[in-house]
C-alpha cells in the first residue's frame, strides 16, 4: 500500500519541451515527451500526444474509455464483451468497437507481433502479467504495464492512464478517483456504525459454486467497502477451491456469484446439497451486475459494484441508489446515456 502511494506521489512527470532546429523564426516543431514510472516500476518515456494505442488488457481498455481515450484505440482486448449483452452494450458505447476489438490478437498469453507492428501504434498498454513482454519490446514502442488488482493500484492505474492521454484525460481520471472516494466514504460513514459481528457475511463464489474469492482479491475489498464481511477472507492467493462443509462452517448470509464464466445463481439454488446453507434457504443468492465490464473486477465500473452491494447488504441505512449512480457513472465516464429499462435491468438484485 505504501509502495503504491509512493509511486503515485513520486511518479515523475516531466514535460520537457525541446526545441528542434536552431532558428526561433522558423516553424517550431515541438516534441513533447512524458516520462513516468509504470506499475511494474519501469521508467518510460511516451511521446505526447498519444494517438494510436493498443490495449492488450481488458481492464486497461476500460481505464482508457473512462478517461475519454477510447477514440484513440487502434486495437484492444475487452473485458466482459464476449457475451452477447456485453458486446451489444459495448457497441452502443463505442460504434467502432467491432473494428478495433483485438481479443484474438492480444491477451495476457498472446501478442501478435506482426499485427501489432502493422497497426503502427505509439503506445502499447499491457498487463504486467503478460507472458510475452520481452518479445514485444523488440518493436521499440513504449510499453506501459498495468497492475491494478487492489483499490490503491486501481486508482493509481486510472491516474497514470489519465496522464498518458493528456490533461483532459488527467482531469477525468482525477474526477473518477474523487467519485470513488466519495462513494466509499459515504457508505463507510453509515456502515461504520455497524459492529463487526452485526455485519452481513458474504461469500463471493467464482466460475464454479465451490470456487471462492480469496482475501487477497479485489472482490473482498468491494465487500468490505460495502460494509460487509467476506467469509473467505482467510484464504490467500487467487480463486480457491473449497468444499461445502467449509461453506457450512462459514455460514454466509449472502452468496454472490460473478457475471461471467458460466457462473449462475441456479447452479447453487437448484443444487440439493446447497440447500443446507442458510443463505440458500433464505434465497440470498445474487449475481453481481455488469454492463460491459463486470462490477466485481478492478476496473472503473467497480465503484458501482460497491454501490450495488452496499444497497444489497445494508438497504435500511445506506442512502444510495444504484440506478442513480449508474446513470451518472456511465454518462460521465463512458459518455453513454442508459435507458430507464437498462438501468432497471442492471441494478436489480435477482437478475437472469
Amino acid at each position, binding site marked *: 500500500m505504501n509502495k503504491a502511494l509512493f509511486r503515485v506521489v513520486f511518479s515523475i512527470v516531466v514535460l520537457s519541451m525541446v526545441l528542434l532546429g536552431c532558428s526561433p523564426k522558423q516553424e517550431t516543431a515541438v516534441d513533447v515527451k512524458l516520462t513516468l514510472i509504470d506499475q511494474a516500476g519501469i521508467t518510460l518515456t511516451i511521446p505526447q500526444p498519444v494517438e494510436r494505442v493498443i490495449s492488450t488488457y481488458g481492464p486497461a481498455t476500460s481505464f482508457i474509455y473512462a478517461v475519454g481515450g477510447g477514440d484513440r484505440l487502434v486495437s484492444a482486448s475487452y473485458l466482459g464483451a464476449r457475451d452477447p449483452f456485453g458486446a451489444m452494450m459495448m457497441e452502443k458505447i463505442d460504434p467502432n468497437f467491432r473494428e478495433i476489438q483485438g481479443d484474438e490478437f492480444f491477451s495476457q498469453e498472446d501478442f501478435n507481433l506482426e499485427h501489432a507492428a502493422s497497426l503502427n501504434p505509439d503506445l502499447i498498454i499491457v498487463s504486467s502479467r503478460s507472458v510475452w513482454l520481452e518479445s514485444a519490446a523488440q518493436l521499440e514502442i513504449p510499453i506501459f504495464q498495468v497492475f491494478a488488482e487492489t483499490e490503491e493500484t486501481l486508482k493509481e492505474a486510472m491516474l497514470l492512464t489519465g496522464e498518458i492521454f493528456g490533461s483532459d484525460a488527467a482531469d477525468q481520471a482525477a474526477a473518477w478517483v474523487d467519485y470513488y472516494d466519495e462513494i466509499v466514504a459515504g457508505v463507510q460513514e453509515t456502515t461504520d456504525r455497524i459492529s463487526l459481528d452485526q455485519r452481513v457475511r458474504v461469500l463471493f463464489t467464482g466460475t464454479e*459454486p465451490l470456487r471462492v474469492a480469496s482475501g487477497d482479491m479485489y472482490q473482498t475489498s468491494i465487500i468490505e467497502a460495502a460494509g460487509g464481511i467476506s467469509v473467505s477472507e482467510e484464504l490467500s492467493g487467487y480463486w480457491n477451491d473449497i*468444499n461445502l462443509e467449509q461453506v457450512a462452517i462459514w455460514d454466509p448470509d449472502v452468496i454472490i456469484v460473478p457475471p461471467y464464466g458460466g457462473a449462475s445463481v441456479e447452479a447453487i439454488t437448484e443444487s440439493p446439497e446447497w440447500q443446507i446453507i442458510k443463505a440458500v434457504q433464505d434465497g440470498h443468492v445474487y449475481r453481481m451486475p455488469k454492463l460491459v465490464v463486470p462490477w466485481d473486477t478492478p476496473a472503473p465500473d467497480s465503484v458501482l459494484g460497491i454501490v450495488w452491494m452496499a444497497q444489497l447488504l445494508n438497504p435500511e441505512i445506506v442512502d444510495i441508489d444504484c440506478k442513480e449512480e449508474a446513470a451518472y457513472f456511465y454518462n460521465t465516464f463512458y459518455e453513454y446515456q442508459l435507458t430507464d429499462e437498462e438501468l432497471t435491468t442492471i441494478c436489480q438484485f435477482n437478475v437472469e
Partner: protein
Amino acid sequence: MLNKIFERKGWKLTFILLLPLIIFIISIMLGRYNIGPFDVIRILFSTGLGEGLPDIPNIAQQLILRIRLPRILAALLVGASFGATGTAFQAIFKNPLVDSNILGVTSGAGFGASLAILLLSEQWQIQVSAFIFGLLAVFLAFLGSRLYKSTPILVLTLMGILIGSLFSSLTALLKYVADPLDALPAITFWLLGSLTGITWDNIGVLGVVTIIGVIFFMMIRWRLNILSLGDSEAKTLGINPTSNKVIIIIAATLMTAAAVSVSGVIGWVGLVIPHAGRLLVGPNHKSLLPVSVCLGAAYMMIIDDIARTLLPGEIPLGVLTGLIGVPILIILMRRNRTGW
C-alpha cells in the same frame, strides 16, 4: 505388539480387510465442521433426514448424510478401483511399474473433461465426456496395436503411451485456448484430481461399475498369477492369455474411466498400492487382490481426509497422492529389494 499379532498371517489379513471400515468410520467423523463422534453415529443410524434427532442441528445431519457420506464413499470406491486395476495391470503386463493409466485412459478422460469444461458446463456432462474419452483412448490404442502382427502386448503398451501423449497434447491445446479467468482454473483443478462437490448423484455409476468390477477381479484373481508368468506358461496351464487379457483390460478400463470421471486425474495410487500389498501379504494374487482393494480404499479415504480437512481450501488429490505416494514407493522399493 502389533507385529506380534501380525506374525499370524490370518490376523494380518483380517486387519487389512477391516481397514477400509475402520478408516471409513474415522473419516466420517472428520471434517472442518465440528460434529461429535456420537452425533455422527446417531445421524448415520437415523433414517428420517433430521426429523428424528431434534437435538442435533439440521445442517450437521445434512452435512453428514449428503456431503460427507457420498464423498467418503466416492474416495473408497475410487481407491478400491485403482487398487484392483493397478494390481491386475501389473500382473498381466508382467511389470510392477505400470498401473491402469498405461493404456491412456486417464489422458483420454482428462481431455474429455477439459473439452466439456470448455464447451459445456454441467457437472454430469463433464463426467460423461471424461468417461467416454477415457474409453476412446484405450480403444484407439487397441486399434493401433492391431496394425502390427507381433507381440501384441508390447505394441499395445507402446500404443497406449502414444495415444496417452496425444491426448495430453490435445489437453494442453485446450488449456492454451481456455479463458484464463474461468475455464483454465477449472481444467487445471480437474487435472489435479478432486472429490469436491461429490453428491449422491455423481457416485451411482461409479458405485455400480466399481462393485461389479471388484467382484470380477476377485473371481479371476488366481488367473492373474498364471498370466503374470507369461503367455506360453499360461497356455501350458490351460489359460488362454489373449482372451483373458482382453477381458481384463476392458474391465479395468471401464473401472478406471468411471473412477477418473468422478475424481479427476489421480496418479500413483494404482502403482503404489500393489507394492504395499505385496510387502504385506506377498505376490500371490489370491490374497494380494483383496488386500490391494482394501488398501487402495483406505489410502484414498485418508488422502481425501487430508485434502478436505487440512486447509480451508481444498488440496488437489493428485498433488497429495504424488507427494505421499512417491516417498512411500521409494521406501517400499528399498524394503523389497529381492524382487517383487
